[in-house]
């Protein structure tokens, strides 16, 4: 062991492999704050836009819940509004909020800082990426005001119903929705190319791939998946747009509607499902992998312990990314596809649970005997692990064809999906905001408000989605505007629905505490100093907080170690920053490892 240490310690700093970049220096207020090419500003623009449109989706979820608990009560709810709310809620949450906030928001802010770069490699393209994303959001919002309102086709936009008369938003809503998706994908591709090239080329001296914090690994890998998966949605959206606008028949079979033969003929709705889910399943990991990465860093920092099995974590991220491309058809067990396919996809689905479970074990082992600080970010991180395990386990149920077939159209799927892909990642978004807010603003978020926000959100989410599993097992169908009188649904299901709705309203309102906290702490929050969590990774070692233009002052940092040197025996402090040169004392600790 001593040999290894002696061989690997190098104090000489080699010359920079990549020449220092020439930064764009903004000259006016407009180019500094609005049309900014600084990744940090772009990150804030992305996050604020995503969170704002996310609030719209939150209100949509209230509408859904009000209808389910109190059918025939509200004059503003009819079947069309219900389906529009369902579609808007799902689409915004998955794509315009989660994807945008993880990659556009955290990706932009953290990648350059964590790898020791001054900015993204192509700042101009990065700026365009945000503005195209904003245009996509605005086109989506425009559909709310279009004649007929937004589309009510469900977030999967399945043809043929998505573009048939009778579906809400048939006239303009669906066209705007598809146009908005196309814009989103173009904008994302611009940003995505940036993130990948920056991680590959922009790393500072000493920052090998295996020294990158897991957050960067997660965002990097998710971006690679997204770059390859989004084209499938793009193709699907373009083809459907042609079907709707020009009357082509990519996805549209021959249909007789109200006794009239429509112009369509011979298309294949299943083709759309393949394209959609070829994007749709990787999308789960586009959201999950950055969350995995951030949780790893949060847990390690707040438990003052190095992450358990760093190498395994990296390998797991890569294998999940590869496997995510061969599981898509498990969303299509009930589509009437060839049964042997089902067997293949069930197998791959169960295999993907292996690297995922490995990550969960490693998080738990990182916590084990750690010096756990129950700060707000840590609470959110632990809540994520618990929730992700819950949602993941029901995923194993649904991955099996025989279990999926009876459960597929029930509330069980809604509960599973929200646990694993809704609640779990959003808990990480919150945790990460509480964790990195001090770096972004120089002030801490208020702890009391944070605790209130956490407990209501966490317990509330369980009160909402746990009973929903039970409703699903009873056979309560999803997608229905109104259940009405059915022999197999007992009256208690109604009471449960009312309970869920009341909790959903409370949890929704509690988010205002968070929003208030964001603005209040900007002025009144306690000053944080450069490194309030005493963390090791590079973003906490910037000369200024918040980091200035170009991030690092005159000299780029040099990295001497991995990102997880916490509680090193014999070291002066319980953390050693990545850019601290090796000393005799630190050398001695490696021998003691």
């Amino acid at each position, binding site marked *: 062991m001593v040999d290894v240490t002696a061989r690997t310690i*190098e104090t000489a700093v080699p010359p920079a492999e990549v020449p220092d970049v020439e930064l764009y220096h903004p000259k006016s207020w407009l180019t500094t704050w609005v049309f900014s090419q600084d990744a940090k500003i772009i990150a804030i623009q992305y996050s604020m836009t995503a969170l704002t449109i996310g609030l719209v989706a939150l209100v949509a979820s209230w509408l859904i819940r009000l209808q389910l608990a109190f059918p025939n009560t509200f004059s503003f709810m009819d079947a069309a509004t219900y389906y529009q709310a369902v579609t808007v809620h799902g689409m915004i949450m998955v794509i315009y909020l989660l994807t945008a906030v993880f990659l556009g928001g955290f990706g932009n802010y953290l990648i350059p800082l964590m790898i020791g770069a001054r900015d993204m490699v192509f700042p101009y393209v990065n700026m365009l990426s945000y503005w195209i994303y904003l245009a996509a959001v605005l086109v989506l919002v425009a559909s709310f005001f279009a004649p007929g309102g937004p589309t009510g086709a469900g977030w999967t936009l399945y043809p043929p119903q998505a573009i048939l008369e009778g579906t809400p938003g048939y006239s303009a809503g669906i066209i705007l929705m598809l146009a908005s998706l196309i814009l989103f994908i173009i904008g994302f591709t611009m940003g995505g190319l940036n993130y990948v090239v920056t991680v*590959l080329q922009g790393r500072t001296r000493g920052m090998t791939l295996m020294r990158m914090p897991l957050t960067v690994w997660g965002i990097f890998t998710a971006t690679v998946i997204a770059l390859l998966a989004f084209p499938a949605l793009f193709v699907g959206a373009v083809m459907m747009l042609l079907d709707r606008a020009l009357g082509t028949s990519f996805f549209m079979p021959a249909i007789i509607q109200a006794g009239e033969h429509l112009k369509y003929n011979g298309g294949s709705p299943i083709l759309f499902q393949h394209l959609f889910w070829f994007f749709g399943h990787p999308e789960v990991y586009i959201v999950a992998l950055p969350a995995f990465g951030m949780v790893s860093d949060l847990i390690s920092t707040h438990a003052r312990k190095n992450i358990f099995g760093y190498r395994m974590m990296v390998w797991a991220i890569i294998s999940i990314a590869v496997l995510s491309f061969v599981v898509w058809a498990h969303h299509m067990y009930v589509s009437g596809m060839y049964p042997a396919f089902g067997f293949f996809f069930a197998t791959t689905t169960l295999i993907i649970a292996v690297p995922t479970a490995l990550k969960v074990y490693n998080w738990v082992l990182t916590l084990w005997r750690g010096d756990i600080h129950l700060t707000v970010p840590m609470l959110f991180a632990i809540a994520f692990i618990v929730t992700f395990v819950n949602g993941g386990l029901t995923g194993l149920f649904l991955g099996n064809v025989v279990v999926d077939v009876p459960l597929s159209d029930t509330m069980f799927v809604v509960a599973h999906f929200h646990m694993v892909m809704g609640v779990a990642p959003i808990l990480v978004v919150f945790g990460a905001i509480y964790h990195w807010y001090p770096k972004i603003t120089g002030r801490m978020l208020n702890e009391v408000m944070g605790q209130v926000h956490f407990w209501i959100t966490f317990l509330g989410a369980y009160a909402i989605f746990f009973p929903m599993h039970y409703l699903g097992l009873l056979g309560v169908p999803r997608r229905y505007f109104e259940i009405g009188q059915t022999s197999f649904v007992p009256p208690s299901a109604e009471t449960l629905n009312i309970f869920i709705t009341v909790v959903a309203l409370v949890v929704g309102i509690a988010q205002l505490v968070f929003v208030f906290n964001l603005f209040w702490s900007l002025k009144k929050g306690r000053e944080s100093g450069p490194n309030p969590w005493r963390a090791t990774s590079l973003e906490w070692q910037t000369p200024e907080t918040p980091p200035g233009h170009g991030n690092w002052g005159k000299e780029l940092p040099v990295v001497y170690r*991995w990102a997880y040197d916490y509680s090193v025996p014999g070291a002066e402090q319980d953390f050693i920053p990545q850019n601290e040169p090796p000393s005799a004392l630190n050398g001695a600790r490696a021998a003691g490892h």
Partner: protein
Amino acid sequence: MLAFLAVLATIAAWWLSQQGLAAKPWLEEGVPVGPRAPRRISTEPAKLGLGLFLAVAGALFVLLISGYFMRKGLPDWRPLPMPPLLFVTTGVLAASSLLLRLARRSAERGAREETQLALTAGAATAIVFVAGQMAAWRQMLEGGFGIAGNPSNTFFYLLTGVHALHVLGGLAALAWTFAKMRESDDLASTRSPIGLCALYWDFLLVVWLVLLAILTGFADGLGEICGRLLS
């Protein structure tokens, strides 16, 4: 699509294997130097960015082609006669690609006049190519093959249209390069963008040849083999 991804995955795996993924970062301090240190990709960022973009655009075309073969298997498909004009435009695009390669070579030699001439000719031929494609569409429309007439018609317009849009995007980049070249006296500063354009044109040509092979039915055998493998 999966085959395309497999190729990408192989490249990624090869590269990752050079990056010391088996390293034990918790035991290693200092800045890694020497032959055993993980190597960076030595290309310039813009070229790497373009390479990644080509992978994304490649995925787009591969998905369109997969859709083509899946839709083709359905009973209402009626094969489409290809206008012979397409073979002429193919020649034009090949010439355009060659001219850009020529421009790259002249730029490397530092011959400014030659570079400018080759770039202009390359751009002009690319414009002729797009115009030729549009003429081909016109011929098809006049021949009664409307866009919504049959899925084979629709795919013809979609595939050629998406490809033509990529050519137009390339032309925009070329125009930017040209403007930059006129601005600066130093040819060296535009050498890299010219090289990137040449690479992109090679990509456009390869994609077009594949699309042509598919549209003319030349690649039917291959499609059938793929279909059998999947079923």
